[in-house]
């Protein structure tokens, strides 16, 4: 009896221990415990949808066949096998998908059906507005407001042996609707360096190159981006920027994990000659600005092995601020021929040196990158420069009778356009080099009213007359410097006029337009012409200045500075009065 009881006791104890050990619950309760902050999902792909082209059905009418043809064009890059099914033998032979892609708006219509009984043909026209074209280098060129956007694309259809309509005649190249482009393409920023790695000084800023990249279903979008980055910049930046990816560089694969993205490159890399910081910045900025590989370290492999023989090339999760520009947003303004600094208390104080002295002779002030020099256009002619110090004095840097307002380059050179001689002049006051002519064949014979160098020193914006803005780039270095690659950014017509332009960052230009209805401030992406219109104020604006998010304007009547707040979307006045022109360093 005792023994049985003892055994029973032992069994009960064992059972209790078992229950205590397992916690009596399927999912253990308790906590709090620290949780690993692991990222989720795939960081190198983007969600996307695409058109699925279907083969033409025998019972489709002409309009359905043309609609199907448009769908097949939209899906052509993903599946080129369907489109030829819409074409006759002859059309298949003749038609080529190459060349620029024409983008029409979504509200296109089909014209009247014209039947040519002699030829047994039916012609159906696609009528719509061309809104842009996508060039072969992936640049997205919107149709300017001046040109006639209307297009009419006749499509010739014939019946085949089975009585089904087939397309026999169509214009070369692909025709996509805006919806197709939105579906299949992504506006993408790629980043290059503001100089080649061998140059002096070393590149220190990234230059954005805006393009439309097609999402390739067979690879990650990150791979598409890095492959395109390696190919080099678009025509607008050709020869003007540095690229640390050598010609022939390719991406073998990109893999993403919780905390890192591994990029396996191939091609003629020379790790010892590579400007590592530049390569890192290009990769990081190009991926992060497109919301890829966010918060993850990048590891670059070369042919599956470590990039350097001494170790791996890793790109930290965050790009150093300096690459995208973190200039001190010190506000200057000119008033009565003197330059003032806007203090933290809101009051303006004249700058030290002669520039701070009121003088009627100087206008169009510009502050150099290090704020140690101020340039201005003299009423007597010529561009004059003074140092920003008590012992400074005005010195003529570029003589000339009819010059545009000076613009500083970040390398310390001073730029202007000699309207009289129709040429671009630069001088280098810091090293005492005199004025020299810089080739700008695209500007010859044009009425250039303003020339502004971008802060990254690559792009240049010129105002032609008062109705057109062109953006080009400074190509070549040193003595071979040249302004080229000019493309029209915006034009106004019908009595509207452009009042002022100002760079906000390397990729956006602010344009103040005076229309009949009032004033408009446009922030235009110089890459693809994407325009954001800032709300206007009742006060008439006269001059613009911008630095990153900060946008300043002066009013014509009360001569005050208004600052635009992007969050509130309003213009608020600053305490300074009698302001002629707001000034930021460079730009």
């Amino acid at each position, binding site marked *: 009896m005792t023994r049985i009881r003892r055994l029973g006791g032992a069994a009960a104890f064992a059972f209790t221990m078992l229950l205590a050990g397992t916690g009596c619950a399927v999912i253990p309760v308790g906590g709090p415990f620290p949780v690993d902050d692991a990222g*989720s*999902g*795939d*960081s190198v*792909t*983007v*969600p*996307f*949808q*695409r*058109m*699925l*082209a*279907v*083969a*033409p*059905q025998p019972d*489709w009418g002409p309009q*359905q*066949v043309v*609609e*199907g*043809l*448009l*769908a097949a064009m*939209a899906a052509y890059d*993903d*599946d080129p096998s369907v489109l030829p099914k819409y074409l006759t033998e002859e059309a298949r032979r003749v038609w080529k998908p190459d060349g620029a892609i024409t983008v029409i*708006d*979504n*509200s296109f*219509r089909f014209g009247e059906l014209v039947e040519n009984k002699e030829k047994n043909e039916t012609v159906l026209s696609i009528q719509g507005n061309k809104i842009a074209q996508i060039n072969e280098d992936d640049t997205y060129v919107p149709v300017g407001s001046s040109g006639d956007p209307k297009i009419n694309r006749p499509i010739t259809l014939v019946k085949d042996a089975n009585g089904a309509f087939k397309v026999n005649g169509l214009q070369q190249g692909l025709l996509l609707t805006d*919806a197709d482009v*939105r*579906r299949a393409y992504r506006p993408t920023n790629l980043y290059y360096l503001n100089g080649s790695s061998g140059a002096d000084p070393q590149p220190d800023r990234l230059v954005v190159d805006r393009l439309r990249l097609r999402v390739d*279903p*067979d*690879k990650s979008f990150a791979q598409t981006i890095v492959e395109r980055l390696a190919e080099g910049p678009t025509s607008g930046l050709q020869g003007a920027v540095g690229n640390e990816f050598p010609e022939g560089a390719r991406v073998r694969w990109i893999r993403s994990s919780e905390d890192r993205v591994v990029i396996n490159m191939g091609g003629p890399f020379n790790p010892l000659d590579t400007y590592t910081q530049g390569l890192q910045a290009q990769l990081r900025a190009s991926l992060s600005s497109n*919301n890829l590989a966010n918060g993850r370290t990048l590891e670059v492999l070369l042919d599956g092995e470590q990039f350097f023989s001494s170790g791996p090339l890793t790109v930290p999760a965050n790009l150093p601020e300096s690459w995208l520009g973190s200039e001190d947003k010190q506000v200057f303004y000119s008033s009565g021929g003197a330059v003032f600094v806007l203090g933290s208390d809101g009051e303006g104080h004249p700058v030290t040196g002669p520039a701070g002295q009121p003088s009627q002779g100087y206008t169009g002030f510009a502050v150099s990158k290090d704020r140690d020099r101020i340039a201005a256009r003299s009423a007597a002619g010529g561009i004059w420069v003074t140092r920003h110090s008590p012992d400074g004095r005005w010195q003529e840097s570029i003589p000339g009778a009819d010059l545009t307002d000076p613009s500083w380059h970040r390398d310390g050179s001073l730029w202007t356009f000699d309207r009289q001689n129709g040429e671009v002049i630069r001088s280098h006051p810091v090293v005492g080099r005199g004025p020299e002519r810089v080739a700008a064949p695209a500007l010859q014979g044009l009425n250039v009213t303003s020339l502004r160098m971008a802060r990254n020193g690559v792009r240049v914006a010129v105002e032609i007359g008062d109705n057109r803005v062109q953006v080009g780039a400074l190509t070549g270095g040193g003595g071979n410097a040249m302004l080229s690659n000019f493309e029209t950014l915006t034009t106004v017509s019908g009595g509207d006029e452009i009042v002022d332009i100002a760079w906000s960052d390397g990729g956006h230009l602010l344009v103040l337009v005076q229309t009949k209805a009032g004033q408009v401030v446009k922030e235009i992406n110089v890459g693809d012409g994407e325009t954001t219109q800032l709300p206007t104020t009742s006060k008439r604006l006269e001059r613009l200045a911008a630095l990153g998010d900060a946008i300043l304007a002066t009013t014509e009547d009360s001569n005050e500075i208004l600052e635009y707040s992007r969050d509130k979307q309003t213009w608020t006045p600053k305490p300074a009065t009698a302001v002629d022109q707001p000034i930021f360093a460079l730009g």
Partner: protein
Amino acid sequence: MPPTKTRRTRRRTLRQILGGIRRRARRAAGRARRLWRRSLQLQVVTSTLVISLIVVVVLGIFLSDQINNSVIERRQQSAASEAAADRLQIADALTRREDDQAKSSDPGKSVPPDPLDEVMDNIIGTGRDGWKKRYEVLILNVDEPGRSRASGNVNQQNIPEALQQMLRRQAEKFIDRPQRYTEPIRLPGESQHRQTLVIGAIIHVNGSYEVYHFFPFDEEEQMLSNVRLAIVVVGFGLVLLLAAIAYLVARQVVTPVRLARQAAERLAAGKLDERLKVRGEDDLARLATSFNEMAANLALKIHQLEELSQVQRQFVSDVSHELRTPLTTVRMAADLLYDAREDFEPMASRSAELMQAQLERFESMLADLLEISRYDAGAADLDLDSVDIRDVVLRAIADSEALAERHSTRFELRLPNEPCMAEVDNRRVERILRNLLFNAIEHGEGRDVVVTVGADRDAVAVAVRDHGIGLKPGEDTLVFDRFWRADPSRARTIGGTGLGLAISREDAGLHGGWLQAWGQPGEGSQFRLTLPRKAGTDLKGSPLSLVPPEIEMRRTWRGQMTPVLLPATGDGGGHDED
């Protein structure tokens, strides 16, 4: 024909190889079977291993099946609900499109984005900065141009044929029940197939839209294969653990049993003081106690028997001694009577002769009894002397000549030329030989008796061969028993006491030698005495064969490959013949 030969050789070789393998396998199986039969521990461990393996396999399959079902079912349900929600959105958007188309009569107005694009953006999260969804969606409308969409890299070719046909068959019957299909699918741009659940349904709004959802199940598959691996590893570990436990438990039980067996074996070998240790009070302890009691009883009985035997031997010895004195007197009187028999009447004379003869026999019997008693009492000792065995043999033959003549038996002597010196007790060896010769003459039925002497480095041997009726199987050991006779009805013609061979064997044993017999019915018999050259050294073999050479030769001729027979009996039984 050389090729045939080669083939034959090769075939034979192959057959030999196969035969060798078969033999080895059979041997190994035999060994294993023997091991299995002999080891209780092995039986317990193997049984446990097999049973636990079966249990673990059954349990593992059951568990794995349960986990599979619950995981896959849950995932399928959530996939189905996600797909249903998406289909609702798509149906809603397509309905809106109908409305929009109806409304957009004004050509100048800007066209709103296609609801199909919008709904796809919503479903797959294109518009947001969100992550890519885990599944892909494909909307297919083959009847209308530009009304098909897909997310990601999935395309029309990835739709399982059977699923599409099922949906189309359903649509013909106006059934719109979603269907699912699971198969490994390789999407474009992917390097390998992935287990994918495809859920398909048809939406009928302004046309017929087939909507397919592709849910990759590779993560679930990976998880389940991990679980399966864990079950296999744990199960294997469990089986091993159980086997180890069974081994330990069996060892606890088997070790005492094994000790008991060893003790019993030693007891059987005569070590009567062998006992088991008794630990605790369990069954095994009681077994040990019982064993010990049994051993004690056995020892007691054997001791009693030994004592009894000792008493009997003592009695025989005493009686023999006591009989000698009266017998001497009787003998003296009998001698007188025998000497004066010619003066008696024929009847009395004959009686005196008979009495004389039987008295002689009685005397020799008493002498033999005393000799045996001496051996039993351990009082026999050797009077060693280095002698040439040939001389001893010749003397013994000379002693037997008279008897041989009476039986018209002749001796054939086969003696080596060299002296065969050995350290022996001359008297005892002579007595042995005499006994053997008398025996041969008695059972030789008048045929020749062959006496062979042989010698080698360690031993000398004498074989006495007769050609009488021989020995039946088993009798070659019995002949050395006291008072044994082959045919009890047969009279002793030479007046043997029945103790001669017994004494001879004791004599041989005293020298450290062997006395062995061989015989076959009709072939006669042969007795072989083997003695070490140096008294007391162990014999390794005999210079002479126990089986007569002619018999051996005859066997060989008959093709019987039987090698030299083992010693048929007794002392030298464990030793090989040379």
